[in-house]
């Protein structure tokens, strides 16, 4: 939902980042206001996933230039857990398995870490159980999953639903969903999308990173951005996704090259 008067949540200016000396992001500019849903599309290797990991603070990526302001704060100065506690959430493309740690314990530790960071009292096991069981409904997750080890032996769809459950508990201001639709059958896609839509409010924002227009039928974006070679090269409305689906990315890269040549 676009609202001209909404507050800017995230402001990225000329962001450059590299991994092991190879520059992947080459000057990303990106702005998100509260209530908005953005989709970032692009080919493999365009830098979409890197962008999401840099925002979450993955230690493998070094920011070499530019700034990221999140709710008025310099996000790049914060540790990954501090970013999470201030309201950034990254749903992983490949959620990790943590054998031996029950999903319930993991979720409670994370939930209480947020509360503590925000000066709220931690909740006890019993109150948390009520809360987590209620939130599990959002992604239609059977409560038996809470007593299994985190993501261990979960199917692809179950892992993604578990990511959205974490999001439902942590209630982030900015949710970045990295290829959350990949590997999902249509039923799981509907459940996950419906979960994301239920969690969307005028005071938070969602960034969807995806290859496919399919997801955008269920979570309708306000803006669609195209990333190529480490930059956002085109921004449009939801109809841009439709066009990409029909025509592919070649026309854009050609346009981009022309633009670059014109600049020279």
């Amino acid at each position, binding site marked *: 939902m676009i609202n001209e008067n909404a507050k800017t949540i995230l402001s990225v200016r000329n962001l450059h980042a590299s991994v092991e000396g190879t520059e992947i992001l080459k000057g990303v500019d990106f702005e998100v206001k509260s209530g908005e849903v953005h989709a970032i599309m692009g080919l493999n290797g365009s830098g979409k996933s890197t962008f999401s990991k840099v925002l979450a603070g993955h230690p493998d990526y070094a920011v070499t230039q530019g700034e990221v302001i999140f709710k008025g704060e310099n996000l790049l100065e914060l540790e*990954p857990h501090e*970013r*999470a506690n201030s309201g950034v959430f990254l749903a*992983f493309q490949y959620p990790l398995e*943590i*054998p031996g*740690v029950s999903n319930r314990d993991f979720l409670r*530790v*994370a939930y209480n870490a947020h509360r503590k960071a925000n000066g709220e009292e931690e909740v006890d096991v019993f109150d948390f159980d009520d809360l987590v069981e209620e939130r599990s409904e959002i992604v239609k997750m059977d409560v038996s999953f809470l007593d299994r080890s985190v993501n261990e032996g979960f199917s692809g769809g179950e892992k993604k639903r578990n990511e959205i459950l974490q999001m439902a508990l942590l209630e982030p201001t900015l949710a970045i969903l990295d290829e959350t639709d990949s590997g999902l059958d249509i039923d799981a896609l509907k459940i996950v999308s419906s979960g994301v839509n239920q969690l969307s409010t005028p005071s938070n924002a969602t960034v969807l990173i995806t290859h496919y227009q399919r997801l955008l039928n269920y979570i309708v974006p306000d803006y669609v951005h195209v990333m190529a070679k480490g930059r956002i090269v085109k921004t449009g409305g939801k109809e841009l996704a439709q066009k990409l689906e029909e025509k592919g990315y070649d026309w854009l890269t050609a346009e981009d090259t022309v633009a670059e040549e014109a600049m020279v």
Partner: protein
Amino acid sequence: MTKPAGSDALDSIAVSAAESSRSINRETYLKHLLTQAAAAADESGLPLKDVRDLAIALVGDCTFPTNRDEAWRFTDLSDLLSHSLQRAEPPTAQSSSQSDISATLTSLDDVHQLVSINGYYARSISKKVPAPGVTIAPLSQLLQKAEYKAQLEPILTERLARVKGAEEVFTALNTAGFTDVMVVWVKADQIVDTPICIVREAEESSISHLRTLVIAERHASLTLVETFTGSPEAADTIRCNTSVTELWLAEGAQVNHMRIQDESEHTFHIAKTAVDQATNSRYQCTAIDLGAHLSRHHLEVFQSGPQTDTHLYGLSALRDCQLADTHSLLTLTYPHSGATQIQKNIVDDKAHAVFNGRVFVSQEAQHTDASQLNRNLMLSSKARIDTKPELDIVADDVKCAHGATVSQLQADEVFYLQSRGISSEQAQRLLLYGFAMEIVEKISVAPLRQALSDRLTVWAS
């Protein structure tokens, strides 16, 4: 710098002289241990002359292990040699400074419990829940009762020190010198739901030989918990415990065995668990090593019939200069059996974990389904892991899987937890805990599982 001619030759003479004095030292040392053992045996008054004589002869054929013995390549016992260990005396008081682990067990009401201090039965702090067809008592007490004596004699002849591998040096030394035998004997078809706990505590800086004999008759079922703990040793002294637990599972018998070693920091703990499994029997062992300066656990399983089921789980969590060595042998010589083994080790500081897991599947053992996994987590660059899975498979129609991994905490896993608001330190603790809990979860006695999980939470922080 120039050296006078012949100095190399002189050096090598000096070295070999040192070596030979060391080797004499080892021989003398083993003799000393045997003398102490024989004296303890005499004093125990147990009428086991044949068993003892055989054991003494077996020790006489052995040498004290060095790193040149394949079985002791990574575990160096040299530190023992400088300590002239005396046999343990009976404790003066029948109470001891208990560790959390043994206190957890002794606080439980509904358990059978035999407590031994320095290898001597502590009657006043033991307790028994009466149960039909179940004998849980030290041999010294049983032999005083006429009704047991007649029943026991054939069992002692056939079962005590009779599981294969009795000739191994520390096993034989233990047989020569144990002061008592904790006997757990469950008659046919008896299902014992109440856990049977053998609590071993130590107070002195001395050597003790701890012995347990478990007999599960046809279709009997029992849960056995063994704990090994001790109060801290006097300064500059060490303690040594050898422990041998023999388990006989008759046809269809089931034993769930938990073994917790949390000895004090200067203890040498050298143990053997030897299991004989008959047709259709099921044995599960969960062995947790947290304590001791040096601990060694020989876990050996033999079959005497087909279609057995064996599960071996192990966890060592070590720090400082601790060493824990798990040497397992799974011998499958009959068809249609299943076996799983998971051994996990966590090493911090300069700690050292050793795993040698041998699985032997003979020509007769067709349709065996066995898997072995050894996972190691290194928390420090000075820690050390030696792992040696040994699969020796002669049969041709079997499924046998094995694997060994050595890794550090995965940065991606830490990041995943951090991205959920959990600090890096807390994330590492949670991952460590998770790694350990996969094994701790196999502990079926809930209060003990809780005590261990609390202990590991403290360990990880």
